[in-house]
């Protein structure tokens, strides 16, 4: 038998090709355990690396902040995939789109705040100088 027919006759798809809201597919525990193990493994590696890098003398010092940020972003990705189960599957399209929008908002808030506030503090001259220059 070919795949679509197997899918039809097994429980993976409803044989009536129609289901009411609330119908649930059965889930097995296997891939959840495997994902949790993989997630923990990757996370431990990335976390240990993040805590060791500033202390161990293996990295060019000015590169340490960048390395830490890279490790953090990688670990967030690991968590999204292995713990939050964000996939590219069709049942996840909406989640991924929402995540993309959320990341855009987060970027705008953080980068925008830093940008504006750095300009603001740049414009803050020492008071005496500022007063002298200020036209009356």
């Amino acid at each position, binding site marked *: 038998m070919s795949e679509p027919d197997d899918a039809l006759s097994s429980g993976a*798809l409803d044989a009536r090709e129609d289901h009411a809201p609330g119908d649930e597919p059965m889930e097995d*525990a296997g891939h959840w355990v495997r994902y949790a193990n993989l997630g923990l493994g990757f996370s431990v590696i990335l976390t240990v690396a993040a805590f060791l890098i500033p202390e161990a003398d293996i990295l060019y010092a000015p590169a340490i*902040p960048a390395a830490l940020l890279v490790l*953090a972003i990688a670990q967030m990705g690991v968590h999204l995939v292995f713990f939050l189960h964000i996939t590219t599957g069709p049942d996840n399209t909406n989640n991924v789109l929402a995540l993309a929008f959320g990341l855009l908002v987060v970027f705008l808030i*953080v980068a925008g705040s830093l940008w504006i506030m750095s300009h603001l503090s740049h414009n803050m001259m020492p008071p005496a100088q500022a007063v002298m220059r200020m036209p009356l």
Partner: protein
Amino acid sequence: MTDAPLPAARETIRRVREDPHRLGHRDLHAREAIAGTGHGATGPAHKRVLVGYGFWIFLLSDIVMFACFFAAFAVQRGATAGGPALREIIDVHRVAWETAALLLSSYTCGLSFAATNARKLVATQAFLLITGLLGLVFVGLELSEFIDLAGRGFVPQRSGMLTAFFGLVGLHGLHVTLAGLWLLTMMAQVQVKGFRPEIVHRLICFNLFWHALDIVWIGIFTIVYLLGAAT
């Protein structure tokens, strides 16, 4: 595909499922609509997909709130007003233990949901309990840090940096505390009501929440603690 004729109803299903435009390929197997995803002719999405999506939207709004606190911290980082610098208030050793506790709790939380999917009551409860205890360890360590800092006179009122620091880290600690209360509620509900669909949906949401808190903690231990200690 075999050439054996399909029953009439299945033949219809096959045609309905097929991409009507058959873009890019003439292969019947590919591009098949999957039941329960809410795409195409296969009916509405499964309830668990919808519940997860709705809660995901809430989580993203929560993360946007955390982004505001992160932005405030990034701006106020150097605003010490003659008080302690960020480097002086950080105990990397304690943060490592906090991180270990929260990461392991994320792991046991994932295992508890695997047990939920297998409908194993005892395993679900046991892993939820371990998750809660690890969360308690985390909150306890964070409280001891705050008490320690306050004892040295480093309170939120001292400087803009300390305000942002206590705000960001404290907000996360508050989230973990509330999630712990939610966890106890879920343990009671699972015990009393069993694996009814709505209980499983609440467990899905709780799992998402707990893992999202761990993601926020990754940002905090990297940006506040490790970067603060390194620079």
